[in-house]
């Protein structure tokens, strides 16, 4: 018993030492201007099975704009860092197929991190994942029947916006960004993000949105207080 508690204590100290001196980066991404109107998912509603899963006509979510023009689904990440992935031990990410749409539509993970692909629909889906040919990531095309356990996929190389598609329901898309470090985040519906456990230093940070483009900044992360950085992306 004594040995066990000593061991646990050592782990706690090691963890504390590891995060000691680490800081967090917080901020928000906002969209300036008015985005183009989203498109109705007419083919989804026309589908005999998928249409029944929605009470109202769903629309695309290319520009998720929340309070104070905060822009969701923006991938924010530190640049110039590699080989620091903790993906193998990270909590698995989830990608759900619900209402014949992907949730979330924008996902970011580390290399080696498991992604559990769930099918919450009463209909068959296929998960067609198409990394770029030059990335070195493995493509997948897996069938998933309703009510079956989640499928597990992962990627070995960093890559931005890997397309995930269901060819059975060709309006279904999601994009996965893969980093080989844990210093990234995806903005919430109001455009906020938080990157934790960053060691003090000078970094280049990038905010990238599939449609609104990207912005890069240089920041100084200091021990103690969180570093705040905000981005403004332009609507077309």
């Amino acid at each position: 018993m004594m040995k066990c508690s000593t061991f646990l204590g050592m782990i706690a100290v090691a963890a504390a030492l590891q995060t000691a001196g680490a800081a967090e980066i917080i901020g928000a991404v906002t969209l300036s201007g008015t985005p183009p109107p989203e498109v109705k998912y007419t083919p989804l509603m026309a589908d005999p099975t998928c249409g029944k899963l929605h009470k109202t006509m769903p629309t695309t979510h290319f520009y998720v704009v929340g309070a104070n023009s905060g822009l969701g689904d923006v991938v924010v990440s530190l640049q110039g860092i590699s080989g620091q992935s903790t993906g193998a031990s990270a909590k698995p990410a989830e990608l759900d197929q619900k209402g014949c749409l992907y949730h979330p539509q924008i996902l970011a993970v580390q290399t080696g991190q498991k992604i559990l692909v769930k099918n919450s629909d009463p209909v068959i889906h296929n998960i067609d994942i198409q990394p770029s040919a030059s990335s070195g990531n493995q493509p997948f095309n897996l069938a998933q029947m309703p009510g079956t356990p989640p499928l597990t996929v992962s990627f070995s190389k960093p890559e931005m916006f890997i397309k995930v598609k269901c060819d059975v329901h060709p309006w279904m898309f999601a994009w996965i960004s893969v980093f080989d470090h844990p210093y990234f985040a995806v903005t919430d519906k109001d455009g906020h993000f938080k990157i934790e456990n960053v060691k003090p230093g000078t970094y280049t940070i990038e905010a990238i949105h599939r449609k609104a483009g990207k912005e890069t900044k240089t920041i100084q992360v200091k021990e103690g207080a969180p570093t705040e950085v905000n981005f403004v992306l332009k609507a077309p």
Partner: protein
Amino acid sequence: MRLSRFALLTAIATLGLIGMGGLVTSHGAGMSVPDWPNTYGYNMFFFPISKWVGGIFYEHTHRLVASGVGMLTSVLALWLYGKKSRPFMRWMGVALLCLGGAALAADPKGWSNALVLGLTGAALSGASFFWPRCEASPKWLRRLGLIAFFAVVTQGILGGLRVTEKMQQLGIFHATLAQLFFALVCSIALFASPWWESSGARLRGMSSAGPAPSDLRRREFGFVLGATVLILCQLALGATMRQQHAGLAIPDFPLAYGRFWPATDPASVASYNQHRMEIFAVNPITAAQILMQMAHRFMALLILIAVGVSAFSVRRRLGAGHSLSKLTLVWLGLIFVQAFLGAATIWSNKAADIATAHVVGGALSLALGTILCIISYRNLTLVQSWVRAGTRDAVPIHPPMGARAATSGLH
């Protein structure tokens, strides 16, 4: 049923298959069945209809129709061998039956595969007893039948590898080979037709008797051949564009992003992508794709001119009443329809049915061009043999319209 009609049936089925393939790409359903040759683990002929949903419907139907065309092509190739193919069919059928039995013994759970093999073997063996006792077609035609058989097998494998290897580039070859295969089957239907034989005999008779057959020259043949080659290049370009799955690289027509020539600098392309709100083909477009579509448009214009020149020159040479003149006019009409369908594809934001009609129109344009090339070439060679025979002085090389019509072997 006659061989020629069966060949025509195979050609029509192939056109239907090209249409189905067009629907698969237009609906972005090419990968909706992740396995091949099975369908979701089932032998494709036993895949439950209840599971033919969404994109699976298009892809699975495409596979079934492709199997049908494969079967028709096999029968066509065998038919070209006439009664000679009987022993081959009998023993191949027995071999397939044995293979089916062995497959069942090795894996009783895979009974459906064994059943398909066994039934194919039984059908083949049984058919050998009722097979037409006709003589074999000429050797060159039999070879064309064999080429068609290997082409359809290659085409099936290409389609399968496109799925299993997840290689989009293979889709380009798959789509282009489909067009070539259709042109080949149409050519076989032409060669097997009674018209081909009777008109050939008539032409040969005329050339040996003295009067000139239709006075076609190398120049007219060159125009027709050139236009056909352009159409083939255009179809390959179209297939490349469709396999990008990027929707419309240019959303307007006749202008391109509101200009005669669109800007393709990185900032402009980024701006185009920002404005795109696609539901289906969501891949961002690139400058190369924009240039490809511009090339497709200019190539269309070039084809329109080339086919127009072909129609005009053939008509001037042979007269308006000549069958070749009429056929080139039909070709020109088809190209106009095809150009309109291309424009409609853009105006409708690449509606699946219109885009598919555009693919089918392309196939018909190439097939008709190929047929015109073949007929023109035969007329050309007969004129040349007539000239070589030394009877040139007997009949003016440009006989009056009436005389030309009377001597034409195509009426």
